[in-house]
């Protein structure tokens, strides 16, 4: 990562305080700056002056192709995701298969499903629904929370989109807040991807893949 620091608000850079620093590249705490001195003296005497400093450190940066790939993938997400989302709603898939029933939301049901997962007792696949409780919660979280947040915080960081729709900055509390939320939404999706793949493999890989691609499902 080119800039392994997260902030809150509108502003955040190597010369301001981060809320979190991530030790994931050689850019982490590189400290390679030469001070240029104060760049602005605020009116209030109690406020520290804004400073400027020249970066001397040769940072790791593969963002050129990285950004372009990121936004190309973004088009796929938006186009296919919209179709999936609309179909999911109007074909009743979300209502039938994602919403937990009253019986699933009892304390004992929840406890049972959690225990099963912790003991790695995963039901054999039928190649489709019905989904378990934690499974439903994961899908709901991904489709209705994580992915919409990824998209919304992502476009908020676009200077052109934020100029056209400044309310986006207000919703998320600024550019850097959107960036931080975007990062944590990514982290959640990464965890989902890992767990999801594991569950598909554990519950019967061939059957699941056949179900996902050819729509073949066992009736039980």
């Amino acid at each position, binding site marked *: 990562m*080119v800039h392994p620091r997260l902030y809150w608000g*509108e*502003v*955040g*850079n190597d010369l301001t305080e981060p809320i979190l620093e991530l030790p994931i590249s050689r850019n982490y705490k590189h400290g390679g700056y030469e001070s240029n001195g104060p*760049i602005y003296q605020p009116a209030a005497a109690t406020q520290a002056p*804004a400073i400027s400093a*020249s970066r001397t450190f040769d940072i790791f940066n593969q963002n050129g192709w990285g*950004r372009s790939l990121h936004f190309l993938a973004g088009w796929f997400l938006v186009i296919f995701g919209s179709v999936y989302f609309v179909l999911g709603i109007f074909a009743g898939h979300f209502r039938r298969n994602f919403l937990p029933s009253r019986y699933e939301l009892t304390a004992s049901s929840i406890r049972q499903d959690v225990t099963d997962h912790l003991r790695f007792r995963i039901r054999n696949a039928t190649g489709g629904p019905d989904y378990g409780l934690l499974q439903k919660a994961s899908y709901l979280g991904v489709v209705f929370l994580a992915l919409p947040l990824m998209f919304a915080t992502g476009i908020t960081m676009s200077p052109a989109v934020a100029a056209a729709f400044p309310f986006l900055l207000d919703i998320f509390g600024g550019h850097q807040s959107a960036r931080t939320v975007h990062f944590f939404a990514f982290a959640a999706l990464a965890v989902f991807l890992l767990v999801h793949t594991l569950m598909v493999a554990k519950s019967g890989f061939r059957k699941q893949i056949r179900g996902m691609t050819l729509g073949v499902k066992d009736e039980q």
Partner: protein
Amino acid sequence: MIVAGLTGVGGLLLSSCSSAEQLPPTYGNLLRAGDNLTYSAQRALLPDGTLAREYTTADISSFPATGTVDPGDLKHPKTSEEFRQLRAGNFGSYRLTVEGAVARPGSFSLAELKSFPARTQITKHVCEEGWSAIGQWTGVPLSRVLYAAGLLPSARFVSFHSYDDWSDSIDMLDALHPQTILAYSMNGRELPLQHGAPLRLRVERQLGYKSMKYVRRIVATEFLDDGGDRGNPKNGWAWYVGI
């Protein structure tokens, strides 16, 4: 293959919606084709004249200086003797040349640029690296300079060339935008060396690397000049970075 085809069709479909739109070359690169899809989509879907948010002096923040911080630095690979001399004379001999698709090509001194009605804006600089900073910029709107040079109706893009040998361009929509200025002042003081003295561009609805520092020469063009071998697309960076 499917991916390439879909992207190509998508890009073509969108660009055919605005038949006059020129796109930067892709050099056969799928990623550059994706960039063009994004550019076309933003031009088609976003309203034209919106302003980037402007802030108050209380919001002015610390501001890193990255990339070239002194084109005259002898250690800089593109070190400029011309810049060293200008700086030694406190930019008294600096002249911004304006040429290309204009009726009256010529040049402007700093004093002449400062004599135009100025615009002061406190805006957010968003670097592609992920950081952001807020600064106050004062300068002459690019549109005023272009009109003073007699911008021709055939002009579609404006190219910029810097003392540290960068070459980049923007389309006319961005060039004539009220917040697109040639700044000679930062935070109420003379533009510091590290931030682009004597003159830097501000393009407020795109990422920071479009706001070129150390501007030397401006060329209005009918055709998109992406900088060729020294430009961004050839070197793996998108030409349009509204996102």
